[in-house]
């Protein structure tokens, strides 16, 4: 387990520092466009880290990130349309989503492998349909509008970047805390061999659900902030399957189960997508598809593979 934190630590630490620096620069001087791009990157850091807790640390390939993101967005939006102030609605969104995830996890996490993947994927679909059929409470198919903040556009941009950045830092810190804790050790046992973990006395049901709840807390908070950021949500947008898949690709890219992997992967993929969109317009989807395929075929260990070509990694599970 210590391997995960300390792989290429100097390199990764430098990278993290550089990213923080870039973030500070953008926050201080960036125009609206850069603020938006940085906010998107920070949001995905949160989502990728969130996924990493369930998918990386615990070994359960969750496709439910979109479900929690969307749920968080809707709780925040509904709360605000009923008069709750923004910050309070964010907290409510995070907690509610985490609670739901915990309860859901008790049932869902009994599935393994493909079945778990499919089940987690379907949760987002079911939630989307429920929101779409929700009439005036959820806005139904027409979506919900959130109030605009009455501040200058630049200031608004900075505010949201700050919010996402705080969440991003929090998610990395949370992951770090988990990794160093007994809880994290338990999760690692589950990831390696769940039956053995049970025999060792790990309360796997509780641990797995807690991991899912933590993951959902982060994703739900991200969704809540997102709702206010864009000022308009509808079922198709916030429960989009890409919100589940992209964080996974990011974690794969940066290195599953590591602390800084999701960060590197998130920033990397968001940057890549931006470059691709600017250069390829019509063929963006095609190029992205190619990139994902290439990633999976040639870099199954993410950037770790690049950094350690020639070094034997046979000991590590694929």
């Amino acid at each position, binding site marked *: 387990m210590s391997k995960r934190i300390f792989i290429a630590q100097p390199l990764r630490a430098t990278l993290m520092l550089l990213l923080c620096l870039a973030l500070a620069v953008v926050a201080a001087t960036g125009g609206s466009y850069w603020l938006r791009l940085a906010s998107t990157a920070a949001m995905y850091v949160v989502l990728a880290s969130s996924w990493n807790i369930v998918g990386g640390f615990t070994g359960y390939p969750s496709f439910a990130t979109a479900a929690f993101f969307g749920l968080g967005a809707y709780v925040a939006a509904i709360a605000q349309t009923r008069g709750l102030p923004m910050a309070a609605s964010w907290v409510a969104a995070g907690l509610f989503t985490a609670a739901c995830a915990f309860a859901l996890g008790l049932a869902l996490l009994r599935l393994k492998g493909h*079945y778990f993947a499919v089940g987690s994927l379907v949760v987002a679909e079911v939630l989307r349909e429920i929101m779409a059929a929700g009439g005036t409470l959820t806005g139904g198919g027409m979506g919900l509008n959130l109030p605009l903040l009455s501040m200058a556009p630049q200031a608004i941009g900075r505010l949201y970047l700050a919010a996402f950045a705080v969440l991003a830092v929090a998610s990395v810190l949370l992951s770090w805390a988990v990794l160093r804790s007994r809880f994290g050790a338990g999760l690692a046992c589950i990831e390696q061999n769940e039956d053995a973990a049970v025999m060792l006395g790990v309360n796997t049901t509780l641990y797995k659900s807690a991991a899912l709840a933590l993951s959902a807390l982060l994703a739900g908070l991200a969704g809540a902030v997102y709702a206010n950021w864009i000022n308009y949500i509808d079922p198709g947008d916030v429960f989009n399957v890409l919100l589940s898949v992209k964080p996974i690709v990011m974690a794969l890219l940066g290195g599953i189960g590591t602390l800084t992997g999701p960060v590197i992967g998130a920033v990397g993929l968001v940057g890549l997508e931006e470059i691709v969109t600017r250069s390829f317009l*019509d063929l963006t989807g095609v190029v992205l598809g190619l990139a994902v395929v290439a990633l999976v075929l040639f870099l199954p260990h993410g950037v770790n593979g690049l950094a350690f070509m020639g070094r034997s990694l046979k000991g590590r599970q694929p």
Partner: protein
Amino acid sequence: MALAQVLLNGLLLGGIYACIGAGFSIVWGVVNIINILHGSFIVLGAYGAFFAHQHLGLHPFMAMLPLAGLGYLLGQGLQRHLIRHVMAAKVLVTLTLTFGLNLLLNNLMIYAFSADFRKVVLPNQEPLVLAGLTLPMDRLLSMLAAAGVVLATHLLVTRTMLGRSIVAVRMDPQAATLMGVDVDRTFAITFGLGTALAIVAGAILSPIFPISPTAADSYLGKAFIVCVLGGLGSLPGVLAGGIVLGLVESLGAFYLGPDHSLTLSFGLLLLFLLLRPQGLLGRKGFE
């Protein structure tokens, strides 16, 4: 009487859903790959039938056979040269790979054909009216074609040597190797078969549903549900799953209103996953 009509509609729909699910089930059940490309393959098959109809005047049911052949080659090639390399990796990796491939194929289709909806326009046929029930001719024919394809595949799997090696590999790949079955080759053939089935499904559906790359996700969703409901790797299971889904949707729309029908089908999927993941007729295993 209305209820009888609803049930009939459900059955017709069920046959169509079974066809959509067949290729997906075989690949998932035997090769243990969730093929996200499945929906896009169906759309590709539909486009094939559309162009065959437009430029060669071929009826989709005729174009089906050559298209199936092409589909088989495509699938087999894909598995042998790309997917095979990640088969040993975790579930996650193969899923992500097929997801990436799907992104590629789907966007290529949008680029090549545009997202405009096309339709294979066959001469309009009046529905058949029997005992107060209306039977839409096009759906009936498609359903019969679908049932035929599923049956033919079932015979292939149970009666031929190839089929037996597929079943053997499904039950126990290591034992199968010991018995002299070339597992790699079988995987490639199975994937090819799954792709061919998807292409054929697309051709069968082309006169009924509008054709566009954006429909791929709906087809994939149905395939998922059919497989989980019916059980993996078993063609009778696919038929069972399809029919159950068709009936549930039809009855659901009738009693609860159309806006809840998708919720109902996905909810059912979730329920089955949690309570009976092997589906109605499947065998436990393939986690």
